[in-house]
């Protein structure tokens, strides 16, 4: 296999060294910008053999899988989507570190035929790295429908690497791609990569830097590439070098870099100029007067007033669909759980009573909570995946940008926050898509304030029981209140924690295209599986603990540890007009938001009256409102808290979030209850 002569010997990582006893399965890494359809190539290659995890030490998703469709088994690694290889974000760092340190046998660079110039930029950077490249020219169907016709052969001879046209969404060209990979692995393709010429001036500058620092560059990095990154102002390269070079040469280097601060501009321009020449040779462009589907749809979707209306309409439709469709499914699941519980009791006739109780009340009760949420989440995730896949979600972010600015965020934060309406856990995990640490942290702190499906279930039930016909108005009011609090908290936190800095939005709006049902299905499946393994296990475990707290030491709820805890909180409860049972129910929402209802049912259960009949007797309207306010704004469930801990990487911020939400929820609720008392309304 022809590698560049200048490339240094591969550095074997611990992973690789372990595997040297057996012949290593060739590793193929998929790289590409966002919106090139990388996952639609990854999915057919690996089928359901995918493993989803995290890159070590990074909050970036790592997907791997094994491909058995070709002549030999291949290990496929899906690298995160990046626009370039300068260490602007964790994704970019993961991509380049992986290629440089793990040295995959082949890198498949996925480009979007409908956006060739821009997506070839990453290829122009990948060509500087030592791993052999195959260019996967994806979405030629989308390009054709936009009037763009591409000659893969011309591109192939211009780049000197194999170029394979694909329509991955229909699995067309996957076999050709595997053949191209095989031709590189067995050396039958005359691999002669062309490196972009960066212009005489830059090349001279590059040679100067290389000569100055050459021997100090770590062996895993190609020297030219490393020098290039220094000229581009790459922070990581600079830090690495600083520890390996003497002060005198460091100063010399800094002088060169300062004098050539514009090099980053000329390097990027030169790369695009190089790409431009290639593209002009290989691409037949559409007539300028063709009005594309994207253009027509965007006239509405990004319109000053039609855009927000459309966004609200789509969101309303999503919620309507989620609750319409999930209702019957939830009922079915509840019947199933009831049946399982009866069956357990019958099977365990001879077993000790406490064991039966743990299994039926604790385990099945907890599992029931998780399962009843599943249909809601699955439908919600499918709707999100659909909107994302057809290309609408980025438009939503654009429209939401102005609103998000009020809370010190930009439109991109809208995506994870919107996920929060389904479940706060994926909302917190979704903050990964944001570029800056600051945006991530702020969104992370706000995500638990989005009313999730679990909270809404409780609010709908309690408001219905207390206010009957007026319940819908109360629910509306609570939703508006909690969103207002979200915006207010955002503005305040931004001012306090980040001195009111304004974030920078830069977001690609992909071309609209027909949904790829496989991608949507797989995304939904992975999210749901993720929720079950993450939230499910936590909720299940804690349900058992709660059951134990409520049953021990005497087996009587009234005298249990949980009741004791609730009574401790009674003074706070008095300010809200809530007795200890309501306080315990609120605490139980820490396990899972809908656990509130289950706990209330247990605590207030009487033979003759159901929970919805008991509630109006226990709560005055004002106390009811106060209870609902706390329920809406309270500290999120444990699953969300663990996600916050994981994504922020700090206990401090997790505790901060708990303190913030506890203060806010009780503060607002106490204010509301006391105000009602002073005015003599609803007490």
């Amino acid at each position, binding site marked *: 296999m022809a590698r560049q002569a200048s490339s240094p010997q591969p550095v074997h990582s611990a992973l690789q060294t372990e595997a040297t006893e057996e012949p290593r399965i060739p590793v193929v890494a998929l790289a590409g910008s966002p919106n090139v359809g990388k996952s639609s190539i990854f999915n057919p290659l690996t089928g359901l053999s995918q493993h989803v995890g995290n890159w070590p030490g990074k909050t970036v998703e790592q997907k791997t899988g094994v491909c058995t469709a070709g002549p030999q088994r291949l290990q496929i690694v899906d690298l995160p989507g990046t626009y370039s290889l300068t260490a602007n974000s964790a994704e970019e760092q993961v991509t380049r570190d992986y290629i440089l340190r793990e040295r995959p046998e082949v890198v498949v660079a996925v480009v979007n035929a409908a*956006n060739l110039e821009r997506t070839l930029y*990453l290829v122009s950077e990948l060509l500087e790295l030592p791993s052999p490249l195959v260019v996967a020219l994806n979405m030629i169907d989308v390009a054709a429908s936009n009037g763009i016709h591409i000659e893969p052969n011309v591109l192939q001879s211009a780049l000197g690497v194999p170029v394979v046209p694909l329509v991955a969404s229909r699995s067309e060209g996957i076999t050709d791609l595997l053949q191209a990979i095989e031709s590189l692995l067995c050396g039958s393709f005359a691999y002669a990569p062309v490196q972009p010429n960066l212009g005489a001036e830059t090349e001279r500058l590059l040679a100067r830097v290389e000569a100055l620092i050459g021997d100090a560059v770590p062996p895993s990095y190609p020297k030219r590439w490393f020098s290039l990154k220094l000229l581009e102002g790459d922070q990581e390269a600079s830090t690495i070098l600083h520890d390996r070079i003497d002060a005198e040469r460091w100063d010399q280097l800094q002088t060169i870099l300062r004098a050539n601060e514009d090099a980053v501009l000329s390097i990027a*321009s030169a790369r695009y100029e190089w790409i431009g020449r290639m593209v002009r*040779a290989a691409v037949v462009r559409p007539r300028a007067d063709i009005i594309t589907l994207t253009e027509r749809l965007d006239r509405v979707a990004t319109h000053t007033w039609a855009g927000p209306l459309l966004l609200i309409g789509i969101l309303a439709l999503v919620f309507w669909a989620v609750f319409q469709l999930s209702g019957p499914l939830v009922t079915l699941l509840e019947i199933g759980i009831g049946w399982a519980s009866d069956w357990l009791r019958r099977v365990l006739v001879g077993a000790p009573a406490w064991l039966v109780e743990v299994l039926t009340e604790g385990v099945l009760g907890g599992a029931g909570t998780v399962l009843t949420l599943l249909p809601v989440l699955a439908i919600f995730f499918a709707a999100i995946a659909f909107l994302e896949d057809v290309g609408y979600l980025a438009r939503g972010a654009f429209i939401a*940008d102005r609103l998000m600015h009020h809370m010190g965020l930009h439109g991109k934060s809208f995506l994870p926050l919107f996920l929060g309406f389904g479940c706060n856990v994926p909302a917190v995990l979704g903050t990964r898509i944001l570029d800056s640490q600051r945006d991530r942290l702020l969104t992370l702190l706000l995500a638990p304030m989005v009313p999730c499906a679990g909270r809404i279930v409780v609010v709908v039930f309690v408001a219905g029981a207390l206010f009957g016909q007026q319940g819908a108005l109360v629910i509306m009011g609570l939703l508006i209140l909690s969103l207002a609090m979200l915006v207010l908290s955002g503005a305040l936190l931004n001012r306090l924690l980040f001195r009111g800095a304004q974030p920078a939005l830069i977001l690609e709006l992909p071309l609209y295209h027909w949904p790829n049902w496989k991608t949507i299905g797989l995304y939904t499946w992975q999210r749901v599986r993720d929720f079950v393994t993450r939230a499910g296990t936590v909720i299940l475990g804690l349900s058992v603990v709660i059951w134990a707290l409520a049953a021990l030491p005497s087996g009587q709820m009234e005298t249990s540890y949980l009741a004791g805890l609730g009574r401790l909180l009674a003074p706070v409860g008095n300010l809200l007009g809530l007795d200890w049972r309501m306080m315990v129910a609120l605490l139980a929402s820490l396990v899972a938001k809908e656990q509130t209802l289950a706990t209330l049912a247990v605590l207030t259960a009487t033979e003759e009256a159901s929970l919805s009949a008991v509630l109006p007797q226990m709560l005055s309207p004002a106390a009811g409102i106060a209870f609902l306010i706390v329920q809406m704004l309270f500290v999120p469930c444990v699953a969300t808290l663990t996600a916050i801990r994981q994504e922020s990487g700090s206990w401090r911020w997790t505790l901060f979030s708990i303190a913030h939400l506890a203060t806010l929820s009780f503060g607002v609720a106490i204010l509301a209850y006391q105000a009602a008392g002073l005015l003599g309304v609803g007490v």
Partner: protein
Amino acid sequence: MPSPQAEEYLEAIARLEERGQPVTTSALAKECQVSAPTATEMLRRLTDLGLITREPRREAILTDEGRKIASTVLRRHRLWERFLHDVLGLRWDALHEQACELEHATSPELEQWLAETVSASPTCPHGHAIPGVAAVTETGALAPLSTLQAGQTARVHSITREESKLLQQLDSLGLRPGAIVRRSGSVRSDGDLSLTIGGKSAHIAQQIADRVLVRLISDNEVATRVVENIPLSALAPNQVGTIQGYSGGRGIMGRCLALGFTPGAEVKMIRNGGQGPIIVLVRDTRVALGRGQASRIWVCRGELDGATSE
């Protein structure tokens, strides 16, 4: 078909006509860099073939047949120049000679393919219109740069002589089609012209300025449309601009550059409501940019080639 040599003469005649010069034997001899008797002999042969007619004052005029051939050759010549420059990256002072060789060996199919490949440009790299390619019509008379008055501003239209040395000189000065030039003062003592080219001051000899055709830009246009760099956020919907540079620190410049916002790149404003984020088209990609970021990218209104598609 006429011989390559005959084609070359027809092409030269068409070029002279284009410039508005009378097609005399001496002018043609100079244009083709041959002696007068050679030119006379060629004109006679072209007349025999029915490709030109000669008027009493001995000026040659292309017949319909001759004009068709001339314009085809000219078209091929300029398409080749575009291709060699844009696709193969040849320097612009090396284009003319290469294109002269290639134009005679070009089949209609190849010509079609060339046209599709370089379809974006209505002119050759030296600024001359490619016959058969729809050009954007511009108003205002063309004049040599040397006739520019002090204080006047103009946009470079084309270079009349495609000689390597001249083109190299012009290139180093930044005097390419589309460049904005301002005459900054009166004639210097050495006879050179003082100019401001794209914001940098320079001076060039009178003979060189004679070879550069420019189109005057009115003061009104100078103030509002062309010369002034504006923040990207100030570009109106459907307006086109060329990126000039960045201000205010690196910020997310790296990400912007990777997405194609490089100096010289063309952007088209899609959405700009005066508040909130904007949407621009850059390198076929629609990108939403926050207003804050967009105000730190500087653009020059209009395209480099002087065609403003507003």
